[in-house]
């Protein structure tokens, strides 16, 4: 099977519905395993930080969530692009399934960041470039979710949400580079290319957790896309068969 035929087959909702089940299960187990190992490494094995003591451990939830908030928006933007140009039904379903997940990751990043900020910075919130652009990202997610459901015709909703997602995707590099472009209270990135300013004993649980969050999202997005497809194609033969069986 060539890559092109693979994508053509993947674009067909019944085929996707069929293969997403084993893939989703695999992602769920890998994600669960990675998250458990990462949490054990981060909360028990990693030493306390030389300045922040044990307080730095909130990083193990905050950083993966913040990373996922950017990653999921890029997934939505790419799916929106494919949907607008190639009219691929599956792409719109993946975008619609991803938006609430991304919004949840963003909310977790904002809340854990705020709880981390109070003891370390001395404040829950400041309007610096990093925090403000991440808050804007949260509202962009809410906008994509609402626009998608605001029209009687799902196709109109998909297109409207896709345009907002493509426009809003400009916020993703702004969030990422805000700490380099402007002076912010939020510290700069601990990653410089392939090297990191985090000691290896503290770094590996973070990388494991970031991978774990990716698989966790992979599982949830496959499962949500399956429901989304059933809902959207409820009157088609394949969906009737699935519902009937």
């Amino acid at each position, binding site marked *: 099977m060539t890559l092109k035929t693979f994508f053509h087959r993947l674009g067909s909702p019944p085929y996707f519905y069929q293969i997403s089940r084993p893939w989703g299960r695999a992602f769920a187990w890998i994600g669960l395993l990675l998250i458990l190992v990462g949490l054990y490494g981060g909360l028990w094995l990693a030493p306390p930080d*030389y300045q922040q003591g044990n307080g730095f451990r909130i990083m193990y939830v905050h950083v993966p969530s913040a990373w996922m908030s950017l990653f999921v928006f890029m997934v939505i933007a790419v799916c929106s692009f494919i949907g607008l140009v190639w009219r691929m039904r599956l792409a719109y379903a993946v975008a619609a399934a991803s938006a609430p997940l991304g919004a949840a990751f963003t909310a977790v990043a904002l809340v854990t960041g705020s709880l981390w900020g109070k003891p370390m*910075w*001395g404040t829950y919130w400041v309007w610096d470039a990093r925090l403000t652009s991440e808050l804007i990202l949260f509202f962009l997610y809410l906008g994509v979710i609402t626009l998608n459901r605001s029209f009687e015709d799902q196709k109109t909703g998909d297109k409207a949400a896709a345009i907002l997602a*493509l426009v809003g995707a400009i916020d993703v590099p702004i969030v990422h580079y805000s700490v380099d*472009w402007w002076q912010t*209270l939020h*510290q700069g990135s601990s990653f*410089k290319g392939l090297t990191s*300013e985090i000691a290896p004993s503290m*770094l590996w649980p973070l990388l494991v957790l970031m991978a774990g969050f990716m698989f966790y999202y992979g599982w949830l997005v496959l499962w949500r896309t399956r429901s989304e497809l059933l809902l959207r194609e409820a009157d088609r033969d394949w969906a009737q068969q699935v519902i009937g069986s």
Partner: protein
Amino acid sequence: MTRRHQRLVMVLLMLACISAAVAFALRAFNGDLLYYLTPTQLAEGRAPAHGAFRLGGIVAPGSVHRKQGSMTVHFVLTDYHHAVPVVYTGILPDLFRVGQGIVVKGQLVNGVFLASQVLAKHSAKYMPPGIHQAQSSVPHRKMLALRRSLREDPGA
């Protein structure tokens, strides 16, 4: 040109136009997006003539003095090019220490910054306490690390 190509060109054009608009807008607002000014930017006259603003720098070694029997503390914020003396009355954040990046909010009066709020800025470094002690036993290396973090993190 097929319909698909037309849509592709339209979407790409839309993205290019919006990216350009956002880039120009951010460029125009560049100065206003800084959360704080560095002592050097202050010396360049970038601070507002009236009212409060934020200043960020590193607490200079040997500059922290507390007034006996009060909550008032004097210290100097530096970026290794310029330095500004700061006065603050109140509780300092836990991370306040010499060599730490600090952001203060307040007004400049006769060359002294009267701070109403002090926030700690922590670096992007995370390491166990032992490693840090081993490093700081070599003052030269510590100084180099400070300078390096300063270059990577303007104003910290």
